[in-house]
């Protein structure tokens, strides 16, 4: 702080108020803070809260001609209508299926990878590996999708070329339902396995080295130390992340599926966000699509709250 500027403004000296002053006092003292808050507040109100009022469409029979307010109230009719749809059941099943499978693979592999990375003592080797492993996380799903087709396409993908060269038969990795599902999962693992290690590595770096030394003195081998020192130390992190991910099992990445889907494989690509897109933006049935989106948000919110409860019960930090 410059001395001269300080003395010049001495007349405007601010002192924290004694407890129990009224709202005017707080406002007079902190008006600058409220002024700053106006900017983010207006963005949140317009772009986050205003759309929430649009959720009433789920309870109306929206007709463009009659407009947002003029359309007729129909209660839960729209929900009854979508619950009866074949695509609805499929979308819910697929959303849960893809997310649970993701949880099984994309969640466990980073833990294993982090344990391996933690065993590396050569800093340079570790850093080079980390740089390469983090790379896919920085690519957009469009680019990943495009690379996937270059690699996995049946007629000219390089992996099929290799298979053919070795005398095998070409596999329609992305053009057949079950294969698509496996490719989808593998690509997810590929994209996130390195990135997922960061949090575990951070919590591993906080482990007291004396624990390892004590274990060595007691004659513990490498895997014994991993099992009895490393894993117990990162257990809270694993549990918190697992619960967080369980809470998100109804969500789904639109971008990932949309970039990887194609006309040949519709069995597993119809998830809730994709169906919302098809019903709403492609077909213009706003009421139905809004109802589906609301269904997902409400279940998602309940799951997150539940996950938070469970985490706190287990003595972990929770999310909220």
């Amino acid at each position, binding site marked *: 702080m410059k001395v001269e500027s300080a003395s010049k403004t001495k007349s405007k000296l*601010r002192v924290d108020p004694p407890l129990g002053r009224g709202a005017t006092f707080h406002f007079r003292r902190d008006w600058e803070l409220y002024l700053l808050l106006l900017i983010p507040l207006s963005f949140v109100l317009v772009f986050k809260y205003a759309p929430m009022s649009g959720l009433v469409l789920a309870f109306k029979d929206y007709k463009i001609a009659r407009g947002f307010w003029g359309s007729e109230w129909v209660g839960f009719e729209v929900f009854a209508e979508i619950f009866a749809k074949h695509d609805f059941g499929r979308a819910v099943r697929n959303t849960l299926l893809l997310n649970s499978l993701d949880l099984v693979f994309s969640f466990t592999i980073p833990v294993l990878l982090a344990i391996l990375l933690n065993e590396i003592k050569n800093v340079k080797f570790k850093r080079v590996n980390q740089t390469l492993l983090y790379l896919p996380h920085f690519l957009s*799903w469009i680019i990943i999708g495009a690379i996937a087709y270059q690699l996995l396409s049946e007629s000219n993908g390089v992996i099929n070329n290799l298979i053919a060269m070795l005398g095998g038969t070409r596999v329609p990795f992305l053009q057949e339902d079950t294969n698509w599902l496996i490719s989808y999962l593998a690509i997810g693992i590929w994209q996130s396995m390195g990135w997922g290690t960061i949090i575990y590595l951070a919590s591993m770096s906080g482990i007291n080295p004396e624990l390892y030394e004590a274990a060595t003195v007691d004659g513990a081998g490498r895997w014994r130390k991993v099992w009895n020192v490393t894993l117990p130390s990162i257990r809270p992190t694993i549990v918190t992340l697992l619960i967080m991910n369980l809470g998100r099992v109804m969500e789904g990445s*639109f971008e990932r599926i949309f970039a990887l889907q194609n006309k040949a494989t519709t069995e597993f690509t119809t998830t809730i966000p994709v169906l919302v897109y098809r019903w709403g933006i492609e077909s213009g049935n706003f009421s139905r699509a809004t109802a589906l989106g609301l269904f997902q948000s409400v279940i998602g919110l309940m799951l997150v709250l539940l996950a938070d409860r469970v985490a706190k019960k287990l003595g972990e930090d929770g999310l909220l």
Partner: protein
Amino acid sequence: MKASVNTLALHRKRRFDVWDVLIHLTLILASLVCLLPFLHVVAKSLSDDAFVIANKVFLWPEGFTLEAYSKIFADASILRSLYVSVVVTVLFTVLGMIITICAAYPLSRKQLKGRTTLTFLFMFTLYFTGGIIPEYMLISNLGMLDTWSALILPPAFSAFNLLIMKTAISSSIPVSLEESARIDGAGHFRILWSIVLPLSKPILATLSLFYAVGRWNAYQDALFYIKQRVDLRPLQLKLYYLVIQASESFQLEATQVSLSNPEVLKASCVVFATLPILCVYPFIQKYFVQGVMLGAVKE
């Protein structure tokens, strides 16, 4: 500490451990899995069409040629998309940072009345949103479909980034520093400008990169909101139509009525769109790692 590391190293040197080798090999393999797909696409993009059609390109270009790239640079619509992406990313990042700072600083002041309510108001958006269709209708009602602002304004507030910024400010800037500034007569604007922001440079860099890379890579909103105005398509969306959906042909391809294999062109488009990220990646990686760790730390 140093001594113990040395003795550990000695222990390690004394015996040859087969697990050591296996762990190194596994990690090398995993890293190659991350790298090789991209190398293959690069090799393809630099190869001659004939070799690609014959499925002869693996990790090294065959019949080296830059023809595909010269086609890309001659295609005005791709360059236009690059321009759109750059402009949108820059404006979006600046706006996003302003919003984040304006929210994070007040909310990190413990004396602010209504702080809990306001924080809840902001954070609630992490867990519940109107969803795709209500947001689409809002953009449509505001007349923002097919405009630049549709790509810049709606996602500019990020509760996640706010959380990180708020945590960083309250944990890295000592209250005493701020108090002494207040006693010297500095107002909040002054404290924010000359104390908080200069001290938060690392986190500002991290969050700017979060915003920039996120905006650069996202295409969902562009897919929804940019319909008629082809000249407003960001690079990722352009790439979607060109490479994945292949519903659109390259300008030059359309004029020649040749049936040349577009695989090389697709590959070079992928490389073209990835290069900006790859060029900055080595430098921004560490900021991202810091950001992830801050995001994991709760207040």
